[in-house]
């Protein structure tokens, strides 16, 4: 029991530190990558290659003046940054990030809390993050902030459903809601990574994750052009910084989730050496490296997409969420459930590479017409009112 306590505390401290340092470096990475994509150099003055820039920014934010709008709801106003920040960190608790570590007192699972209901925990806490944003928008007593908060809640609710539906497909394949089992099930070979048998679910999940983390092209709650930075207009100094930390922690968690659910978690591809006991420190370190690399790739994807795509218009965002993503996720779930029923219950296949490849083939068949139609914009454009229809048509 005391060993469990001590190892848990050590894991909590290690994960918390890693995320905080990661988030700090991520703000720098965002600025430098954005600069490189625009043929600039970015902040490179503070420390070697600008590595101490986050420390300088943090110090600046700590000593800046805190403003409190006179009309603001003080309790909620002060609570909101924490409300958006804490769920982002809590979600990471159930993500397994390496192979178990052997110690003289027994193996330690490299996950802060190996919850049997890890999956549901993630869905629950993932949607709690929106409270921070909505409360911030509401308590600021500022019309732009309120609009930002409202947009955030509408967007979160819309995409949460598609997100949940896409992950149900993972549950169908894995047959368990524990994330360590999800990773174990994927580790047989490269093709049992869920991205192959469940490519479309992965696509839906990634799109929905962008919307959930309020990153471009879905950063409607911020929309600095129209809403003056939306929900955090009235925030300054460290409270403003907290929203930033929350955004980046959300990105880290979302990337870690993509890795865990669809890209084999800490599994090292092309080998099964790392997936089976006996565990060793080397295995733990290598699998941790594998997990980190995959997560970093998705973090890069977040940044890359942000500096490439423009923001959606609000009606397009809603149309995409409700008229494309949700029906798509539901249909896909039906198809995948039928396929699994056929292969598993009728043909009696066990879940292995052959099973995964069969599902992958099915995904390819579905993806070609889907991407063709999506690309032509038939679904999104079809949701737009016809010219001249609706009261104020044409009055821009």
């Amino acid at each position, binding site marked *: 029991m005391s060993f469990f306590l001590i190892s848990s505390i050590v894991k909590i401290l290690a994960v918390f530190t890693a995320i905080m340092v990661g988030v700090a470096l991520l703000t720098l990475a965002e600025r430098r990558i954005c600069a490189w994509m625009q043929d600039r150099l970015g902040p490179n003055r503070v420390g070697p290659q600008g590595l101490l820039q986050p420390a300088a920014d943090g110090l600046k934010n700590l000593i800046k003046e805190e403003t409190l709008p006179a009309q603001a709801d003080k309790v909620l106003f002060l609570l909101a940054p924490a409300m958006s920040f804490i769920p982002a960190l809590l979600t990471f608790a159930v993500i397994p990030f390496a192979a178990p570590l052997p110690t003289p007192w027994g193996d330690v699972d490299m996950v802060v809390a190996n919850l049997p209901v890890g999956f549901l925990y993630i869905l629950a806490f993932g949607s709690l993050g929106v409270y921070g944003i909505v409360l911030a928008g509401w308590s600021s007593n500022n019309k732009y902030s309120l609009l930002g908060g409202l947009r955030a809640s509408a967007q979160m609710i819309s995409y949460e459903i598609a997100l949940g539906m896409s992950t149900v497909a993972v549950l169908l394949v894995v047959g368990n809601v524990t994330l360590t089992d999800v990773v174990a099930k994927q580790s047989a070979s490269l093709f049992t990574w869920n991205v192959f048998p469940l490519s479309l679910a992965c696509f839906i999940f990634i799109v929905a994750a962008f919307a959930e983390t309020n990153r471009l092209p879905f950063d409607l709650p911020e929309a600095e052009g129209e809403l003056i930075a939306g929900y955090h207009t009235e925030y300054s100094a460290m409270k403003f910084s907290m929203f930033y930390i929350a955004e980046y922690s959300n990105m880290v968690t979302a990337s870690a989730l993509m890795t865990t659910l669809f890209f084999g978690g800490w599994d090292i591809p092309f080998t099964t050496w790392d997936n089976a006991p006996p565990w060793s420190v080397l295995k733990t370190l290598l699998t941790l490296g594998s997990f980190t690399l995959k997560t970093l790739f998705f973090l890069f994807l977040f940044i890359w997409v942000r500096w490439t795509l423009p923001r959606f218009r609000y009606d397009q965002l809603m149309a995409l969420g409700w008229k494309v993503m949700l029906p798509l996720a539901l249909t896909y779930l039906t198809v995948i459930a039928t396929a699994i029923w056929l292969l598993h219950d009728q043909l009696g296949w066990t879940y292995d590479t052959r099973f995964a490849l069969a599902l992958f083939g099915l995904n390819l068949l579905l993806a070609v017409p889907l991407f063709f139609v999506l690309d*032509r*914009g038939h679904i*999104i454009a079809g949701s*737009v*009112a016809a010219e001249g229809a609706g009261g104020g048509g*044409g*009055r*821009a």
Partner: protein
Amino acid sequence: MAIGVKVMKRPGTEVSYLRATLKGMALTLSHLWRPKVTMQYPEEKSSKDWTLSPRWRGTHRMLTDEQGRAKCVACGLCPQICPANCIKLVPGEDEQGNRYPLIYEIDEFRCVFCGYCQEVCPEEAIHVGVHYENSEYSRDRFVYDLERLCAQTHPVSTLWDPSDPKGE
């Protein structure tokens, strides 16, 4: 839609969401490795793409003769022509009847850097300079006296020549 947003009707062949997205992503990715245009200012002050123009009109410089005296003969033309009235000149005369400036001060805060003083000067004494790093810790340091004007070493402006408008 309740609010009136004008929606362009485009033929399906012109519409592209995924291909255009992928194309854009490929473009931004390729820019990661392209040469950067940033000039790292305090270390680099000019690059092959950008140098300060020789016609730049910056803070003044007074040229001196072989004995190190200012070339100025205190004729009074530069304070006369100065549109900002920033030149203070008190003329003096020595035993041989040579005129020289007793006081010659330019208030660089008032100056509009038009370059008329250089154009009007018959002795080619006062010049505007090709120079821009002028920061000081106090405001009164921006009134340049004669000694300071003579001590400047930066290149002087070539100004604009109407017979050679492109500077060739």
